């Protein structure tokens, strides 16, 4: 029996992992590493790559043209994450607790809560102007017909409104998954704990805050980290609502939309592929570091 065969016999999982691992390396790891290398070059995406050291990173932080856009995209990313947490997590908890109570039609409610998750973001993006356009939109038309026309403004040109809209749509779209994660965790809480607390005279509130909530830490970690990953460098919703430039004054521009704009946004931009790659590398590093920090902080004092 050859050495390889012996190894396979002892570690049979290798045979199962190998095809996937090779594909993963080819399609994910290699492009990631090559992106990292490209961020140190001046490159138009097709021709020769010219090594330019840290020039792309310096441009991102100091150039009058890109520096401001980059800082703004970074700021927007964090604003969307924080607002997403403040609005989204309590809503997900609320629905999870409600569904756990096995209310009437809870199966149907479960489906309704999960539904936004499967609705195409593109469809949502196309619906927004139909609703909010100041001239032809449904809301403006209804308001004008009921005598509230004076309250109609150019909502889609309003920066605060657009930011709020991005957060609301992100929360609404992510609500289903977050609710299901928390619900699954809620349903896995051992019945003995609940019964013991009930015997000790625990009321509904203290049952939730003192018993259930600490035991929900695993799902909370998932929700916090996944929401961060999905929101921080969101591309689809800001792009659909704000276009290539991330809305008026780049108000909903994120690192995702900025990367796209710099890399592919215009046939007239030249040699910006390296710069765009530098944006994606910084985005990757931020997401990695923040996610590790979140997991480390939230995993502390995890109940046994």
């Amino acid at each position: 029996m050859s050495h390889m065969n012996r190894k396979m016999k002892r570690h049979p999982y290798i045979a199962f992992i190998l095809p996937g691992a090779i594909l993963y390396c080819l399609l994910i790891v290699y492009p990631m590493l090559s992106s990292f290398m490209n961020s140190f070059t001046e490159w138009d995406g097709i021709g020769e790559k010219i090594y330019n050291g840290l020039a792309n990173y310096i441009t991102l932080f100091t150039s009058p043209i890109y520096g401001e856009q980059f800082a703004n995209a970074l700021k927007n990313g964090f604003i969307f994450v924080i607002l997403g947490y403040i609005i989204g997590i309590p809503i997900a908890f609320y629905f999870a607790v409600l569904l756990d109570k096995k209310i009437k039609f809870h199966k149907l409610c479960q489906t309704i809560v999960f539904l936004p998750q499967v609705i195409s973001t593109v469809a949502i993006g196309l619906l927004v102007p139909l609703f909010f356009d100041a001239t032809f939109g449904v809301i403006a038309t209804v308001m004008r017909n009921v005598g509230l026309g004076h309250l109609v403004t150019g909502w889609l040109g309003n920066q605060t409104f657009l930011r709020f809209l991005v957060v609301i749509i992100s929360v609404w779209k992510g609500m289903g998954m977050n609710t299901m994660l928390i619900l699954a965790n809620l349903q896995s809480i051992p019945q003995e704990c609940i019964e013991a607390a009930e015997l000790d005279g625990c009321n509904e509130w203290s049952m939730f805050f003192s018993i259930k909530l600490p035991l929900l830490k695993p799902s909370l970690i998932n929700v916090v980290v996944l929401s961060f990953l999905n929101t921080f460098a969101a591309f689809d919703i800001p792009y659909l609502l704000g276009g290539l430039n991330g809305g008026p004054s780049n108000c909903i521009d994120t690192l995702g939309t900025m990367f796209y704009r710099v890399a592919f946004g215009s046939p007239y931009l030249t040699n910006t592929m390296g710069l765009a790659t530098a944006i994606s590398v910084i985005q990757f590093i931020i997401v990695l570091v923040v996610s590790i920090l979140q997991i480390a902080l939230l995993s502390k004092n995890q109940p046994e």
Partner: protein
Amino acid sequence: MKTKKLVALLLAMLMVVSLFAGCNKPAADDSSNDVQNEVGANPADDAVVEDNVAEDNAAEPVTLTVWNTSAGGVDDGYKAIIDAYCAEHENVKIEFSSYTDPEYTTKLQSALSAGTGPDLYFTTGWNALQTYVDAGYAENLDGKLNIDAFSQDALDVETINGSLYGAPGVYAQYLSVYYNKDLFAQAGINSFPTTYDEFIAACDALKAAGITPIAMGGQEATPYMFAWLISTQAMSSEFFNDIRSGKSDTLADARFESGMQMLLDWGEAGYYQDNYEGTDGAMQTVLFTTEQAAMIFTGSWSVADFRTQNAEMNIGSFAFPGTEATYGVRSVTSSLSLNSASANKDVAIDFLNYTLTPAAQQIMVDAVAGIPVTNEATINDALMQEVATAPDYAAFPNIAMNIAGANGSNPQEVFCNYILSVANGEKTIHELAELMNEAWDAAAYAAIFQ
């Protein structure tokens, strides 16, 4: 035992191969969907054009691949030309694929790099074509195309380093002011304005008659950009002359800024529709075609949309009368380049030459309601006839404001990025002009005109 292992191995191989099946989707299939989505083609009107009627059986069968971006709205024109070409060359099958922008650029670059690029591909000419020439993916076409009928400005689009690297576009686009003649008449205006004062008077008269003078998609940068590309020249032609002659080399100049300031002044004066800051480009067109606004700054590429949305509309067009010049932009379109790695160069060149024949020019001009750049095709669209005979359209290399400057950016990109900040009062016009100047290569601009 051995058989079991063999079966297991075969199954595993099958599984791995099936994983790749999705990755190997033929480009033509891919694009068929794109084409159908983008231009509304039905399955019968497939992007893949085949013609197997044998006329010359001796000729070896050849399959050419042609890639285009659907953004230019010329798919129908190319498909009709391909049909006509294949009818005359039975041995040639042409697979035509069209992709949405900007995915098109990504797909094309990936395919060319991987050696699987099409035989012929569309570029926007100028520095976009330069990229492919520099990378060695565009064939030098000097002396290979019948270009005698084409003017220099048509050839300039496809000329890189003094050599021709693409077939010239056969029609020009006209960026100008399109207006609703009936609404003008309603407001008592009987002819289009020829001076800036007349333009303002027309806006005031329209406003007084309860008609929105100008449709503006103030939620996006592009509608501002189209208006600015015209107005900036018309309001400050002296400044541009100075730049061209090398007398001035900065965009941070009050004369340059006046063209941008005017766009904001019109908003202040109420010449745009109510809540224009919340209207996007698509809705801006709808405002014009539903006859709620009398004028729109756009290019001739929008005429097809005007016709689709309101076939009865009585549309006219005029070059914008500024304080210093009357200006409309005549921009010759680009066309196909030949992949230097193509295995069918002779047939591809033959096809490129076919696109330049009077018959093919006519097909394209009719398909896009364009204005031909040679006298070998005629204009059948009434509005386009009016535009073509207007005297004030300056031939304008569209590279002028998007020639690459610092960090690969250019003034036009910077304008698009920040004009809404200016409109919102977060930046001043001067700050915008200074930022645009950062991305400006004055010497390269001046060189175009020497």
